[in-house]
């Protein structure tokens, strides 16, 4: 898998140092240009690059729908996107670091998108989705990386659409959004499960794509909760075993 790379290391075991090999998550830059102008350079796990670029352009508001994206060419560490409308105002030189809180969206509460999705799901769907995400093949192989799963609520089931891994949580999120766009997934009926902390950035990405629910094995933050209240997003944290904490818009959980 492109997400892993075998490296040399010296292991310390039982009082001794020994030469060894170990697999680590691969991290690589991807410089994205939009209409010929450098827009952002992301550090990411180098797989699902196309999905990442498309998802990122959507969640950053550069495009509102796939039809606005006329071309994406990816060559090694460069991605070049052409969008239908000319963007004289785009000036990039931004950098997404692979760690946490590296999002690039501006926070202007007056421009917060409102989620119009009427999604309601059952608690069992939440458990099933988080479990499916955490036990995915990707996670078993790599460990350590962040995982985001995109699911569609169908009858009483959570139908898995795509599970993406990345060294960055937001990157993994953008990858599943890109996958969803490319595959005509109805985001009004979709929700997201993830392995890591739900940040304000993740909330904004959900709001921009009209995804009404995000559930995680991990925690969330005060700002994420405040924004989720206003946008209509249901945040669920600490989904573990038979337990979960619903922080906002609990009416989206049928019980």
């Amino acid at each position: 898998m492109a997400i892993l790379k075998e490296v040399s290391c010296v292991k310390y075991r039982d009082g001794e140092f020994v030469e060894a090999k170990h697999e680590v998550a691969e991290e690589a830059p991807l410089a994205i240009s939009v209409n010929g102008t450098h827009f952002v350079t992301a550090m990411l796990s180098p797989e699902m690059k196309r999905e990442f670029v498309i998802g990122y352009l959507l969640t950053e508001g550069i495009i509102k729908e796939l039809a606005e994206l006329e071309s994406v060419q990816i060559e090694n560490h460069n991605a070049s996107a052409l969008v239908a409308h000319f963007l004289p105002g785009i000036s990039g030189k931004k950098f997404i670091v692979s760690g946490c809180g590296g999002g690039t969206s501006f926070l202007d509460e007056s421009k917060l998108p409102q989620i119009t999705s009427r999604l309601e799901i059952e608690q069992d769907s939440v458990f099933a989705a988080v479990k499916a995400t955490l036990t995915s093949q990707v996670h078993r192989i790599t460990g350590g990386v962040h995982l985001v799963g995109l699911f569609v609520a169908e009858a009483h089931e959570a139908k898995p659409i795509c599970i993406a891994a990345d060294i960055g949580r937001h990157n993994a999120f953008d990858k599943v959004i890109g996958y969803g766009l490319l595959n005509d997934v109805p985001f009004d009926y979709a929700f997201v499960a993830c392995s890591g902390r739900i940040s304000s950035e993740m909330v904004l990405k959900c709001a921009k794509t009209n995804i009404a629910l995000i559930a995680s094995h991990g925690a969330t933050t005060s700002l994420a909760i405040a924004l989720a209240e206003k946008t209509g997003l249901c945040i669920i944290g600490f989904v573990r075993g038979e337990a979960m904490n619903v922080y906002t818009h609990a009416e989206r959980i049928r019980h």
Partner: protein
Amino acid sequence: MNERIRADFPITSAVVYMDSAATSLTPEPVVEAVSRYYREYNANVGRGVYRLAQIATQRYQDAHRKVAHFLGATEGEVIFTKNTTEAINMVAYGLHWQRGDEVVTTLLEHHSNFLPWMRLKEKGVRVKIVKPTLDGRFELAEFEQAITEKTKMVAVSQVSNVLGAIAPVKELAALCAEKRTETGPLVLVDGAQSAPHLPLDVSGLGCDFFACAGHKMLGPTGTGVLWAKDPELLEPAFFGGGMIETVSQDAYTLASGYERFEAGTPHIAGGIGLGRAVDYLTNVGMEQLSRYEARLTQRLLEGLESIEKVRLYGPSDLRDRIGVVSFTVDGVHPHELARMLDEAANIMVRSGHHCCMPLMDYLGLKNGTVRASLYLYNLEEEIDALLEAVAAIARAV
């Protein structure tokens, strides 16, 4: 075909256009794509690092990919040319010929798939010409007889631009594959009349080269395509800027990809427009388009057959042909008939030899024919208008 399509071709509100086999009308989205290049990102391709150059380059590259996808080219290289003629000449010039090599072509070829091979006679190449039946169909056995171990190239049209007849190119390519040695026969398919009208899969066709005209398939004039399954077989016909990796005082290395064959500044806006044109055709759906045209063709053929003094040329079975329909009216010169159709009925049709003089000789039609050629923007009412006008002229003779 719906109103929306019709609205994309403003000329159709002014005239009845039935000369699509010569050049098709251009839909608004293609005009828009061309004008956007000049208005918004006019720059040369493959040379600059600045923003406009990058946008132009990316769109021009995308256009190649779109055309490759449209043609079903899963391998090889799609090269943009200015027309089918240039594409075929690039093959005739680009292959290495030896005295005694043979080319097999047919008597119903457009001059563009005839003269480039005839010219090779100067190099000692022998050109063999397979004759069709009088309605433009071929027996595979005729080709089998013509192909020898010296045959380097078999060059045929997939659809006749005079008779509308569809040639069995897939079967012919399979026959050539059976006989294939290190030197040939290679197969070139002239798809000028097939690419605009039939669903295509050039990789599955079994040919080595496929040439077609962008301007006959809703693209701008000055656009054509050559698909080469193995571009290494071809020496570039033109040398100069944009087609090299490096140049020193006494050596050069050629670029890879289509750039190798597109020396100099290409028709950038045209190429991008052609990319938009194949998007347009894909959105309409080639299967659907082909079925629609078959309905129009049937109406036209049945109508013409019922008019006294009208002679029809080409296959009568719709499975063997497309909507390129040649006919004559006894006692009326084809040019005169075409002029009358324009002046009296506002209908634009082609007349004369249609760049197929050897075929006209063979059919004994020294004045040629009138040719009505249809496309997705034509309507049944327009067919009826043509039939009515032809009937009136025939009665008056």
